[in-house]
């Protein structure tokens, strides 16, 4: 206070202060910038809304005329009776294989990378490689599946009538596809656990395993779960790898009373593949109303999965 009064020998009058701090007229630049951002947001939203509305309008006749039978009917060449049940079954089996294979392997790898691996150039190399793998186009994983997993499935006895080009090989390929993403999201969730919690654990005489099991993983779990369930959604939506490893884009009779082994090793299809295949059918109904209806089913499944991810995250967050 005293220093400022010595620097400014004369005290400013209130008019002078008012002149400097009051604004003369509106400043248009920030308002214009804000408006621009709002327009950009609206454009992206508009595209989404138009897309959704178009699909819903096209799909509406199918659901109106067929009701639930569109869901419960199997594939057929007749647009009157064609449904998506076979595709839902195929997609669900693929998702289960992904969950069984990619989740434990990916989460385990993430725990090792974050908690155990020494901080050296090899670890950093592995880390970078995993990140790069997450960016590899999915068609490349399809080729990997064809070259590696289809023969592998044959060797372990799940070849069946399709000589390995079946839902098991598809599941393994999808697992390989999402594995890097599972590792990255899990590793990030684990890294976000405050070090203070680890120190507290070590401080009372816990071993590394006890600290990881009792303190790090429970805290990281919401993030890990969210990430893994979202990768499941990715596996549901992927089309290209399945086309490469011989998904049945044609039509086959619904499994009916075939044995579980035959279902698992027989020809299969998946939701996005059905959409793809229907858009290329010669009968107009397939492309005009059935494909949009299948898209709606796929979107509903994805929304459910995303909702599940959010619900699981909130549920495990709420605990403390």
């Amino acid at each position, binding site marked *: 206070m005293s220093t400022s009064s010595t620097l400014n020998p004369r005290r400013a009058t209130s008019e002078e202060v008012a002149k400097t701090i009051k604004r003369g007229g509106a400043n248009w630049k920030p308002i214009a910038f804000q408006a621009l951002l709002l327009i950009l947001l609206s454009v992206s939203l508009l595209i989404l809304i138009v897309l959704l509305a178009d699909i819903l309008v096209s799909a509406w006749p199918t659901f109106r005329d067929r009701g639930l039978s569109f869901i419960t009917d199997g594939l057929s060449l007749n647009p009157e009776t064609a449904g998506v049940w076979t595709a839902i079954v195929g997609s669900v089996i693929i998702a289960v294989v992904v969950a069984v294979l990619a989740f434990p392997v990916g989460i385990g790898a993430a725990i090792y990378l974050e908690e155990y691996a020494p901080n050296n150039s090899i670890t950093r190399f592995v880390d970078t490689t995993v990140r790069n793998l997450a960016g590899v186009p999915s068609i490349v994983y399809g080729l990997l599946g064809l070259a590696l997993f289809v023969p592998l499935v044959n060797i372990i006895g799940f070849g069946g009538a399709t000589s390995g080009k079946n839902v098991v090989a598809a599941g393994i390929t999808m697992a390989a596809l999402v594995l890097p993403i599972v590792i990255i999201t899990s590793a990030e969730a684990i890294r976000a656990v405050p070090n*203070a919690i*680890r*120190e*507290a*654990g*070590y401080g*009372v005489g*816990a071993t590394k395993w006890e600290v990881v099991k009792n303190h790090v993983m429970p805290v990281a779990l919401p993030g890990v779960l969210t990430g893994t369930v979202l990768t499941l959604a990715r596996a549901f939506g992927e089309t290209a790898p399945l086309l490469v490893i011989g998904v049945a884009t044609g039509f086959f009779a619904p499994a009916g009373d075939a044995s579980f082994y035959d279902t698992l090793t027989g020809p299969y299809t998946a939701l996005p593949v059905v959409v793809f295949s229907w858009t290329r059918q010669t009968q107009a109904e397939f492309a005009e109303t059935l494909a949009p209806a299948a898209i709606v089913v796929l979107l509903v499944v994805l929304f459910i999965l995303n909702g599940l991810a959010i619900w699981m995250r909130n549920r495990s967050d709420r605990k403390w």
Partner: protein
Amino acid sequence: MTDRIETHLGTTEEGQMAQEQANTSTTASDVAATSAEDSDAVRTSGGDPDDLNPVIIELENVNVYYDDFHAVSDVSLPIREREITAFIGPSGCGKSTVLRCLNRMNDLIESARVEGGVNYHGVDLYGPNIDPVEVRRRIGMVFQKPNPFPKSIYDNVAFGPKIAGYKGNMDDLVEQSLDRAALWDEVKDKLDESAYALSGGQQQRLCIARAIATSPDVVLMDEPASALDPIATLRIEELMYELKAEYTIIIVTHNMQQAGRVSDRTAFFSVDIQDDGERTGRLVEFSETATLFTTPEKQETEDYITGRFG
């Protein structure tokens, strides 16, 4: 800001201060009785005079490196049983680093390397076949920021004994530990609630309860009150004073008044800045707290405690 807090602390604590001064003066007279013993005698672990508590941890020429960086140079000092030993000094002087050597907490930093001897009951903690996990059960730790586990109050205290294979009645042990940490009355009706629902001061006392639940010999406290308000700080200090009857406490603190209030002995650390800008901490002086604060041997210590540091 700091000034205001300390003034406030001074006024709220007058009763406490008077009481502690009384205590200090008794210890001071004890010192007078043993002042014939020179500082070399204090440093030997064997042949203690009867009125000096036995040495529980002896640091011998401890050097700490992070990769090539020499963080702490040549620290030697004895820690005596059932006393409060304070480490004071400016930022970066290595006092926390030295504290973390005492329960192998530095192991968690990959680049850290400790040379020299840290003898606990005569056993070198950095010797062969030492299990750091077992060391940390015997030498507990309370950290700068209260860091309860994101679990219930009960589970926070019970975790340490549980993993150590405690066979007795866990409920009793939890009650006992919380009681000793002067927290039982405040939390006895909400043991199942999250530890995060407690205030900062309560969380820190919970961390102390957690540290003593494994029945350690020694409790290391790394600036335990630096994140707390003056009243919570006072409670922690009172608690340390009570715990001294059963445990050996080593406390790192930035607050010289705090060191003066609670500790029996004080080690003053300082930092040497080399030509290449590397900062290496070293022990300047170690003696009875009363002596260090009234008649320090070294000019450097006097400059620091009178606020003329630098």
